[in-house]
């Protein structure tokens, strides 16, 4: 059996029965996606391996179908105790900038009946602490807002195999919400 390593510059096709394929060997690979069909409290990505992948990138559009302002929190390894996490935020609303630290892992918020769009970087630092950085596009129209959040878990983990997004309002992740998780495919 021969081993063949392909290169991006190579062209699809080949002579005889040979198949040479154009593609990307390493990079940001779409690993998993979730499209929410009916309102749920949470979504989860399982079977992850951050020791192998090092970094994850989550893109999300969320609809809050409830009548309450809703926080969406990012948990790892099934540890959904909010007080085991902290985050620092910078919230920008017109000419106002508010900042504070909170004892929970909120990564996105959405007003009642509103939507948000976010990009979240996820890693485990060299000492085993889960860390995330989210940039969130919230509200809209003449109320357009921007929130940056940087968070971590207070305890260490030997690996991260599960990431969940949990609404603090029942049914807060509405139908039509979409999530794509990219992994850094290194090998």
């Amino acid at each position, binding site marked *: *059996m*021969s*081993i*063949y*390593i*392909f290169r991006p510059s190579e062209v*699809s*096709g*080949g002579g*005889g*029965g*040979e*198949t*040479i*394929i154009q*593609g*990307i*060997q*390493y*990079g*940001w*690979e*779409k690993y998993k*996606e979730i499209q929410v069909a009916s309102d749920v409290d949470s979504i989860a990505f399982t079977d992850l391996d951050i020791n192998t992948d090092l970094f994850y990138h989550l*893109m999300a*559009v*969320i*609809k809050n179908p409830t009548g309450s302002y809703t926080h969406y929190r990012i948990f790892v390894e099934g540890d959904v105790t909010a007080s085991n996490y902290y985050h620092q935020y*910078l919230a*920008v*609303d*017109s*000419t*106002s*900038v508010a900042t504070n630290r909170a004892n929970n892992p909120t990564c996105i918020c959405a007003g009642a009946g509103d*939507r*948000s*769009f*976010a*990009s979240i970087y996820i890693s485990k630092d060299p000492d085993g602490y889960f860390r995330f950085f989210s*940039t*969130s*596009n*919230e509200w*809209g*129209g*003449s109320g*357009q*807002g*921007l929130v*940056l959040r940087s968070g971590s878990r207070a305890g260490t983990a030997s690996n991260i195999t599960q990431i969940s997004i949990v609404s603090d309002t029942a049914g807060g992740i*509405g*139908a*039509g*919400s*979409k999530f*794509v998780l*990219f992994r850094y*495919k290194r090998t």
Partner: protein
Amino acid sequence: MVSLFLISQVIGGSGTTTVIQGVEYGWEKVDEVLVDSDRDYIDFNDLDFNRDWFYMLWLALKPPPGDIGSGYQLFVNNDLTKTNYYCQYLYSSGTSIVAERRNAPDLCGATANDRTFTTCFMGMDPDGYFRYLSFVNRHTATTQELLVRAGSYTISLSNISTIRIAATQSNGIGAGSKVALFRCKRT
């Protein structure tokens, strides 16, 4: 014979067939533009946000030589009416922080004889509103600055098929500017 490779396929093969492990789904380059002469705008057509969900832009832009810089704005589906868009930004320069909401789809900008490096994520939320997040590195050396923006379109869409990056100054996208557009290749 052309064969599409799958993530789960294994390097190796038998006979004359070569099967290659690689990234089938992920951030795929849709198109790129290397600007060879000053221009007003760059269009990307034949997009499909319903299919791809998310897009990503990388931009290295410069205004043409002279004493006028340029802003750069982001339009969708050929709607060039600036007031149909809003953005919220956070601007950091030295020890100054400024926040403002603007009734326009500002993406980034560069002053005279300077340049900007910007990344931008785009998506359509579950109710059909275009949203984006941009991260801007501009100016250089002792005037280095950063901006973060969140923007949206005020009209709900059934899909997005075109985006335009438009300079606010005539011929404001100078020769040597580079733009690459990536899509979230899901299927």
